[in-house]
């Protein structure tokens, strides 16, 4: 067993875990943050995407011990006093159906918009190409991210529908 201490959604946590424990299981089962999902086990689907030091990573392919001392953000930490523009965008633009891929999509988009605040549609499609959605056909996910990008750039202005 080994101690893994890290910061997640602004809180420092510490757990005794097996060195082989996957980060996604540390988050879901040790910390009970079940918004991060598991969909494939092969780093293909992106349902487990979280932010590690601001970068989007697939937490099914990282050991918990590798995240020791780092700063993590999961879907549970995205809304502050109110919904994040990405969460708002997914709701407004019908960017989700069953909701299973949604947390991973939002985390991927959050890291992407931090790097590219004014993306084209093609750039958005490329950014989320590592996250699979079986319900929406992606069209409305792209719209949701565009909505959020515009709102993050011009928070005071009404976002065009």
């Amino acid at each position: 067993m080994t101690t893994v201490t890290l910061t997640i959604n602004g809180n420092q946590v510490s757990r005794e875990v097996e060195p082989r424990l996957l980060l996604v299981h540390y988050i879901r089962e040790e910390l009970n943050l079940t918004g991060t999902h598991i969909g494939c086990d092969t780093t293909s689907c992106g349902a487990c995407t979280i932010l590690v030091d601001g970068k989007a990573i697939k937490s099914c392919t990282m050991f918990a011990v590798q995240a020791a001392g780092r700063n993590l953000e999961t879907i549970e930490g995205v809304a502050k006093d109110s919904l994040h523009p990405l969460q708002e965008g997914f709701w407004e633009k019908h960017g989700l159906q069953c909701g299973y891929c949604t947390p991973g999509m939002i985390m991927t988009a959050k890291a992407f918009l931090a790097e590219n605040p004014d993306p084209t549609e093609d750039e958005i499609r490329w950014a989320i190409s590592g996250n699979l959605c079986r319900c929406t056909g992606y069209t409305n996910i792209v719209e949701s991210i565009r909505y959020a990008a515009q709102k993050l750039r011009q928070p005071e202005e009404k976002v065009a529908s």
Partner: protein
Amino acid sequence: MTTEVTTSTPVEISGMGHRMKRKEDPRFIQGAGRYVDDIKLPGMLYLDIVRSPYAHAKILSIDASEALALPGVVAVITGEDLKKAGNLHWMPTLMSDTQMVLPIEKVVYYAQEVCVVIATTRYIAADAIELVQVEYEPLPAVVDPFEALKDEVIVRDDKEKKTNHVWHWEAGNKDATDKVFTEAGHTVHEKMHIPRIHVASIETCGMVADWDKINDRLTIYMTSQAPHAHRTVISLVSGIPEHKIRVISPDIGGGFGGKVPVYPGYVCTIVASLVTGKPVKWIEDRSENLQADSFARDYHIDAELAADANGMITGLRVKTLADDGAADAAANPSKFPAGLYSIGTGSYNMKAAHFEVDAAYTTKPPGGVAYRCSFRVTEAVHMIERMTDIMAHDLGEDPAQFRMKNFIKPEQFPYASPTGWEYDSGNYGGALQLAMDMVGYDELRKEQLEKRARGELMGIGISSFTEVVGAGPSKDFDILGIKMFDSCEIRVNPTGNAIARIGVQTQGQGHETTFAQIIAQELGLPASAIRVEHGDTDTAPYGLGTYASRSTPTAGAAAAMAARKILAKAKKIAAHLLEASEEDLEWDVDKFVVKGAPSRSKTIQEIAFAAYTNHPQGMEAGLEATNYYDPPNLTFPFGSYICVVDIDKGTGEVHIRRFVAIDDCGNIINPMIVEGQIHGGLTMGMAPSLFEEIVYDENGQNLSGTFMDYLLPTSMETPKWELGRTITPSPHHPFGAKGVGESPTVGAPPAIVNAVVDALWHLGVRHVEIPITPQKIWKILRDNGIDGD
């Protein structure tokens, strides 16, 4: 022009037709959804499954001693154990066949469940399955159903009849069809295979079973599209009385048909909880999911289409072999072993048709669950839309014009099809004309000619499909004897809000929103004041569940009918309150008004309060109703899709440049949700057309067991879908709706294939099998002397 959706309620009420944002979304966008794997109970154990490395093998021995010695392992359960527990080693399938839960004599498919391990953690369970020693004697596999019919290798030697032939089924009139073919001016013939595919919802299957010995209760959290039906099946298989079983289907991460059947893992998880007296969790990993369950299609089709000298279609003759895998565990209504395949005369008027389907066992996992498809309609639509296109090309007619002249005309509805269906309503020409206008059909044909002259490959493909959904009328439709009605219970509270419980179960379709809108339309209560609950057999009325695009046609109708019962009572209460006779009252959106005296009215909220505080003497208090809706007929959504493809001669890659989809699903509850369903359905129509196939080698090994081998479309491959609509209400549905979830998945594949063949027809190509991979096209081009330059 696309038909606009009209509304008759203000946005504050948000009845039918409003683009209401989904009520379920706040939990999903904040990571607060509750899926099966999120459920954690005190003392919960974990189950993992030892699976067969062979497609067909005798089991000589199972030695679990090493696994049992591993600290944390609680139990190992084998087929022998299940047999001793009351012959639980076999279970019935939905089609009244049998399927092994755990084997004793032999395994009949690769990745078959051999035995299960229960341990204190997920990781220990995974370690322990590696320690179970199973000795096998491999037997020859039979992967091809045509080979299987030679009966050289018998898959199911547990059966009395030693044959792999499972059943034979026919529809239509053979003699009349043969006569039409004898007299035909022109006939076309084609063979096509609709390969085995997998629903691959992003959430796999799983369960938490919790046997409470003290209170004598079994609570089951399950990835279930049909919780009530599953409760009944679990009761029948286990012998536990149904009232002691509670099935909860929590948030479901996509279903598409894969979560309709009962799989061996579910039964083992229940047994494990009964044996250990503890809650037990089983969650499939992706490879298990892609290798062992949730398979669809696998139809080998041989079709002929006849036309007269004027190019009018006269008849259709179809023979088909269905590959069932090792059990007929298809998800079809009991009387329909080939589902609703005989809808295959499609959108076309013809004199006669005849369908014959045979099914074969092979050493593959049971197939035949849906892949976003209402009971084999996808196979039927693929066949007829390909055949129509081949006929048009053969006759040198434009495929659009050929369809137009052969369509069933609007005035022919209700239309009696040659295979016995009564189509409720349709305007096929209207949908195709709209699609042609939107895509700019005539210009595209000109462009195609110019490009062909320059040696470029461009194709335009059409699919004008007719769906059949909303199963179904109790006269013909049941699953294991249970009639395919569906239900809704509404309780209006004294303070003017309501709770509705439904027998269907959402997996992303947005029922919590759309059912509130249906009731808002009927009762005038704001949709925001109506809470919709589903998926808990302890609270919801009995229903058959959500699949086959049946929620709106069945339970949606039940919601409207229950609301109408409430409104009838509300009218009596209003008459009492207004001291008027019922005949003098009229309904106006959300209130009863005295005719000719608009100032005298009672709102639904006032009436609800009075139902508990001031109801007429002699009337029962309260304001609630339940309806079990038995549809008088199925519904027949339809649409016309036009796909434009460009083919890269160098790589063989097919690029979808445009895809225009006109859908007609009757009246629309929420256009935003309908459009979302169509986007997703089109993507799941494109997927097997271009990418997805479950492939087996000659030994029956699954070669598509991960998302690195089984290719789901990403955002990069998925085009931007262009949607339009016409609205032709169903005349028999209470609010004229038809259902939409599966239409696009059913309609899209032949549009894509027709576009590809259209691009290659001048080379002599008549048909290309799906999935249309770059390799297939590359080979066709090279065989025709076309290289990449």
